C-alpha cells in the first residue's frame, strides 16, 4: 500500500495515500473537532459534506483553510490544527452557527445530548456578537406520529439526508431552498406525514441537535400512571434491554432485563410484560404461514407467492406500502409482536383480570420510532380504541427512570409478570438482524420435519453484512433464506423479487441497520456502529441463557392456543393476529 508522510502540529505521521487530514490527525491522537462529519464505518459510509467548516485546519502554502474531514493529506503536507488563525476561524464559524440557532437549551429534548452544545462548550463560546440584529431562520414545526421536526434547530449538517437517502434509500429528506433559508425537508416542504418517510427514525438517531426528535409520550404516560382508574400494562421489546444500560453509563452490550423490569414496576405499571412473549406468538403464526405457503408451493400450487417476507418491522411495512405497492401480497400477514401483544392484552388478558378495554392502557417500550405510528394505525383499533395506546422509545424510558430519581445500575433484578411475560430465546433474538428468521427456522424445522433440532443456533444466519443469505436443510428440502437490514439493502432484494430473479423462500427485512438494536429510538450511538455489535452480542447471550429457545415450546403460548386461539391461523388468530396492507403511494400530498 502506498503511503505518504505529513506533519501535523509538528509531529510526523505516515498514512496510506488517500487518508484525510482528519484521520491522519486521529492517528496521532489529535482530535480535531467536527460537527457535520459522521463516520459510519460498518456501513461503509463516511459523511463528510464539508458543510460546517468547524474542522478547518491550516495547511502551509494554501491560500485558505482546509476542511480536514474532506481534504486528502498529501506528501510533505504541513498542517496546523490549532494555530490562532484556525482557532479564530473555528470560534467565529461556531458563533455564526449559534447565531442562527435557538438558545432555549433549557427546554430542548436534546439538551445534554447535543453535539452542538458540546462543541460550544469545547470552543468556549461565551457571547454571540450582534445577536440583537441577527435574524433567525424560522420554519414551522412539523409533528408526525413518530418524529417531530423543529427545523429552527437544524444546522444543515445533512446527516439525516445521508441516512434517508444513501442508507435507507427512502428519499424523504433533502436540502431545499437556498442561502439563509436552506433547510433539510421533504420535497416542497411538505409535512413528513405526507412524504415517503417510513418513520424508521435513522435521521433522528444521527441528528446532532434537537432538530429531529421522537414524538415524546412520557408526560402522557405519567398522567396515565397517576390515574387510579387506569390499568397500565407495559410490554418491552427485546432490543431495549440490550441498550437501556448505556443511558446509565453502563458498557454497551450490558443486559439490564431484570433491572428494567424492577424499574418499570416501581414506576407504577400494573403489569410488566414482555414483547418477547408476543414474538413467540408471531413465530407460531408467521412460521405456520411460511410452512403453509411452502407446502402448497412444493405441492405444485402455482398461485402461492414466494418468497414470504417478514412483517414485524413497521418501518419496513411503511416502506413497501409506499414504494413496492405491486408486492403487497408477498409479506406475511402476521402482525408485529407489538400489535399481537396489544390485541391479546386487551382481549384475552383483559378478560382474565376482568377489566374493560377502555380502562386499560397498553404501553410499549420500543427501540423504534415507527412503532409510535404503527400503534395508531386504524387496522389496530377496536371502535377507535387502539390495541396499544402508545409507544415509548428506549431513550424516553431512560429519561423517565432518571426523572423518577432511580438509578438502573442499583436496581435489583426481577422477573416479568405472567401470562404475557414468559418468553423463549427465539423471542429474544427478534432484536437483532436475522433473529426473526432464525426463530422461525427453529420452529419450522421441528414442525416440518417432526424432528428435534440437534443444534438450536443457526450461525450462518447471523452477522452484520447488509445483505446475507443462508440455506437450511429441512431434512432433505433446502430452505433458502435472504436477510437484509437497512432499507437500502431491502430495496435491492425487493427489486430482485420484483424482477422475478429472487430464489429465496423467505426473506427477513429490518428497516434499521443492525435490526431493532440499531433502531431510531435507541440510545444515540453518534455514528459509532461498534455499539450495535455489542448490543447484538448481548441479545444472543440472553438467548443462549434461556432454558427454552424455541417459540413453540413456550408453555404460555401453548396455553393461549388451548384456551383462546385454537390453533395458528385459526379464524380467531386471523382476526386478532393478522393484518392487511394497503397501497399508500398515493398518500403523498403536495401542499405547503
Amino acid at each position, binding site marked *: 500500500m502506498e503511503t505518504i508522510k505529513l506533519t501535523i502540529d509538528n509531529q510526523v505521521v505516515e498514512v496510506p495515500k488517500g487518508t484525510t487530514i482528519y484521520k491522519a490527525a486521529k492517528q496521532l491522537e489529535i482530535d480535531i473537532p467536527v460537527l457535520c462529519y459522521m463516520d459510519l464505518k460498518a456501513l461503509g459510509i463516511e459523511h463528510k459534506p*464539508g458543510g460546517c*467548516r468547524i474542522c478547518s485546519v491550516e495547511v502551509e502554502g494554501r491560500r485558505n483553510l482546509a476542511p480536514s474531514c474532506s481534504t*486528502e493529506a498529501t506528501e510533505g503536507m504541513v498542517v496546523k490544527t490549532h494555530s490562532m*488563525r484556525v482557532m479564530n476561524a473555528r470560534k467565529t464559524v461556531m458563533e455564526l452557527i449559534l447565531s442562527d440557532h435557538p438558545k432555549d437549551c433549557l427546554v430542548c429534548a436534546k439538551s445534554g445530548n447535543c453535539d452542538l452544545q458540546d462543541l460550544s462548550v469545547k470552543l468556549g463560546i461565551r457571547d454571540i456578537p*450582534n445577536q440583537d440584529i441577527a435574524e433567525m431562520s424560522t420554519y414551522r414545526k412539523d409533528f408526525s406520529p413518530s418524529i417531530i421536526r423543529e427545523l429552527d434547530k437544524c444546522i444543515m449538517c445533512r446527516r439525516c439526508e445521508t441516512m434517508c437517502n444513501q442508507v435507507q434509500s427512502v428519499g424523504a429528506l433533502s*436540502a431545499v431552498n437556498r*442561502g*439563509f433559508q436552506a433547510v433539510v425537508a421533504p420535497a416542497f416542504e411538505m409535512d413528513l406525514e405526507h412524504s415517503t418517510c417510513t418513520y424508521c427514525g435513522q435521521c433522528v438517531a444521527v441528528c446532532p441537535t434537537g432538530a429531529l426528535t421522537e414524538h415524546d409520550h412520557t408526560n402522557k404516560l405519567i398522567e396515565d400512571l397517576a390515574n387510579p382508574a387506569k390499568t397500565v400494562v407495559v410490554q418491552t421489546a427485546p432490543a431495549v434491554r440490550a441498550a437501556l444500560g448505556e443511558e446509565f453509563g453502563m458498557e454497551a452490550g450490558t443486559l439490564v432485563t431484570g433491572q428494567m423490569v424492577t424499574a418499570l414496576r416501581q414506576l407504577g405499571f400494573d403489569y410488566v410484560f414482555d414483547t418477547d412473549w408476543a414474538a413467540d406468538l408471531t413465530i407460531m403464526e408467521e412460521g405456520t404461514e411460511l410452512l403453509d405457503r411452502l407446502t402448497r408451493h412444493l405441492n405444485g400450487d402455482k398461485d402461492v407467492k414466494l418468497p414470504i417476507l417478514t412483517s414485524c418491522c413497521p418501518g419496513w411495512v411503511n416502506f413497501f406500502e409506499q414504494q413496492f405497492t405491486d408486492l403487497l401480497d408477498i409479506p406475511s400477514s402476521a402482525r408485529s409482536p407489538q400489535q399481537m401483544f396489544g390485541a391479546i392484552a386487551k382481549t384475552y388478558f383483559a378478560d382474565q383480570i376482568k377489566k374493560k378495554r377502555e380502562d386499560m392502557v397498553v404501553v410499549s417500550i420500543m427501540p423504534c420510532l415507527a412503532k409510535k405510528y404503527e400503534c395508531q394505525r386504524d387496522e389496530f383499533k377496536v371502535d377507535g380504541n387502539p390495541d396499544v395506546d402508545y409507544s415509548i422509545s428506549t431513550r424516553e424510558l431512560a429519561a423517565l427512570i432518571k426523572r423518577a430519581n432511580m438509578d438502573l445500575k442499583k436496581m435489583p433484578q426481577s422477573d416479568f409478570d405472567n401470562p404475557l411475560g414468559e418468553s423463549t430465546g427465539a423471542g429474544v433474538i427478534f432484536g437483532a438482524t436475522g433473529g426473526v428468521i432464525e426463530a422461525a427456522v427453529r420452529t419450522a424445522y421441528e414442525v416440518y420435519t417432526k424432528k428435534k433440532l440437534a443444534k438450536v443456533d443457526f450461525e450462518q444466519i447471523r452477522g452484520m453484512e447488509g445483505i446475507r443469505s443462508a440455506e437450511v436443510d429441512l431434512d432433505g428440502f433446502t430452505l433458502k433464506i435472504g436477510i437484509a437490514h437497512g432499507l437500502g439493502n431491502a430495496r435491492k432484494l425487493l427489486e430482485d423479487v420484483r424482477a422475478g430473479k429472487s430464489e429465496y423462500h423467505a426473506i427477513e427485512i429490518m428497516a434499521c441497520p443492525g435490526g431493532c438494536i440499531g433502531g431510531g429510538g435507541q440510545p444515540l450511538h453518534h455514528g459509532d456502529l461498534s455499539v450495535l455489535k455489542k448490543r447484538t452480542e448481548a441479545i444472543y447471550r440472553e438467548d443462549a441463557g434461556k432454558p427454552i429457545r424455541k417459540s413453540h415450546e413456550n408453555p404460555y403460548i401453548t396455553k393461549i392456543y388451548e384456551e383462546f386461539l385454537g390453533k395458528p391461523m385459526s379464524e380467531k388468530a386471523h382476526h386478532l393476529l393478522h393484518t392487511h396492507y394497503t397501497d399508500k403511494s398515493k398518500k403523498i400530498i403536495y401542499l405547503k
Partner: protein
Amino acid sequence: MSEYKIHALVCSGTGCRASESDMVVENLKTEIAKQGLSDFAQVVKTGCFGFCEKGPIVKLIPDNTFYTQVKPADAREIVEEHIVKGRKVERLLYTDPDSKEAVNDSKSMNFYKKQIRIALRNCGVINPENIDEYIARDGYEALGKVLSEMTPEGAIKIIMDSGLRGRGGGGFPTGLKWEITRKEVNEQKYVVCNADEGDPGAFMDRSILEGDPHTVLEAMAINGYCTGASKGLIYIRAEYPLAIERLKIAIEQAREYGLLGERILGSNFNFDVELRYGAGAFVCGEETALIHSMEGLRGEPTLKPPFPSVEGYLKKPTNVNNVETYANIPVIFNKGAAWFASIGTEKSKGTKVFALAGKVNNVGLIEVPMGITLREVIFEIGGGIKDGKKFKAVQTGGPSGGCLVEKDLDTPIDYDNLIAAGSMMGSGGMIIMDEDDCMVDVAKFFLDFTVEESCGKCAPCRVGNKRLYELLNKITDGKGEKADIDRLINLGSVIKDTSLCGLGQTSPNPVLSTIKNFRNEYDAHVLDKKCPAGVCKSLMVYEIVEENCVGCTACARACPVGAISGERKEVHKIDPTLCIKCGACEERCKFNAVIVK
C-alpha cells in the same frame, strides 16, 4: 448573380429585441421591397453590437453607418433616404458625448476604436441563425484542420502556446485543463460549456450564444476531439430563451451539415451536443455545482479535488469551459497561437469581454486586449462618467470582486494585476461608480446578491454573509458602532478563509475592499452618523435655513406626511421624527431654504 450592395445589420439580441428590433427588421424589409430594391439591399438579423446603451442598433454596410435607438417607424426614412438616396438620417446617428457631434460611421466611434473583437468577432456581423454565414466567415475551418491535420496532443499544444486562460473568472490555463482531461483514461468523457452566466450586469456569454452560437459548438467539438469526449453538454440558464433557441437552431444545422454527429468531416471522430437547463442559481456557475445540477441533484458545490477533469459528470472525466473561452478557440487555430499570444500581457493573452455598467456614458459590451488600462476602458471606450460627475470607483469581477479606485486606473488589466490590486477579473462585469455612490451602500448591494445566491451548504457562507449584510445595514441605518467595522473585517476574513466554494471565498470582497479604500466613508457613517454621498436615508436630515425661508408654504404643501409646520410668511420647520426624507420639500422650494445635512 450579383450580390447585395447594402447590408442593413439589425441587432436582434435580447436587449434590442425588447425595444422592438424585430419590428425594425420587418419594416426595413417591407420598405426595401416597396422601393423595388430587394435585390440591392439586404436586411440581416444579427447578434449584439455591444452598444446596448443606445439600442436598437441598425448598422448599414459597407459605409458602417451606425444608427441608434431606431424605432420601427424609422425604417421608412432609413430606406427612402439612406438606402435609396444615399443620404444619412442625421437624427438617428450616434452623437459623441464630448463633441456633441453626430458620428458618421462606427469606425469613428470611440466606443469601437480600442476594441479588438475575437470572441465577439461575429456578433453584429452575421445572422446567427444561418450556418452558411458562419461558414463564410471561416466557420468550422478550425475543426476541419484539427480533425484532419492534428493529433489531440498537437492541438492542445496550440492552445497551451496561445496562453489562453479560462474566461469564466478563475483564469486557469485552458490548454492545461484539456491536457488533464485528455490524460484520464476512461471510455466515456464529457465536455461541458458553462453558460450559467450569473454575475449581475454581465451578459457576454448570452451575447455570444445569441450572436454566434456555432463558434461554441465548433470549439466544443475541438475540445471533444482533444480530450477524447464524444459528448458535449451546454448548461444554460432557462432565463436565456433566445440563446437557447439560437443554440437549438445551430445544433440542428450543424447536425444537418454533418459537423456534429458521426464521423465528422470524414474523420473517425463522433461528437454531439445536448442542452441542459439551469434554473438560474448563481452558484451553479461553479463547476461542481453545475455538474450536480446537470445530474439532477441539488445544485451545490462539493470539495475539489476531485476536479471535474478527473471525476465530473456521472463520475466521468469532464472538461468544463466557459462560453467566452470557447469563442476564442476557433480563432486560435485559424490565426495561430503566436498571433493570439501577441495580444495581451505577459501572463494574460488575448482579449477579454467586459460588460460596462453603472455611471458610465457608454453602457454595453466591449472586447478589449488584455493590458488595456481601466482609464482607457472607462474614459475612452466608456465615454467617461455620466453627467460630467467625478469617477469614484469601479467594481470588477461582479459580486465576488472588489472595487478599484483612482490610483488603479492606469493599471493594465489582466488576471494577475487585478488580483494584486485587490479585485479580480471574474467573468467580466465592470460597474462604474461616481461621487454620488455611497460605498457602504455599494457593498451592501453586492452582499444582498450573495446572501440571495448562497446555496446554503456551508455555514460561513450561509450565515456569515447574512451577518455581514446585517452589520452593513446597521451602519447605513445610522446605528453602527466603531467595533462593527472591525467585526466586518474579521467576519469577512473568516468567511473567505473557511467557505467551501468560490462564492463564499470571494463574497466578502466588496466589503473588505470598500473598507480598505473608503475607510473614511465607513467612519463617517459610524462616527459622524453621516453619509457623505447622501445615499443612506437614515443618516440624512432635512432642515430649513431660516434666513432663506420666506414662508411660502410650498414645502409644507408638498410634504406627504405633514412633517412641515409654519404660518404663511413665517419661517417653516421640519419635524425630524415625522420626516421620511423623500426630498419633496427640497425639490419644491424655490429659495434654497431646504437643505440636507
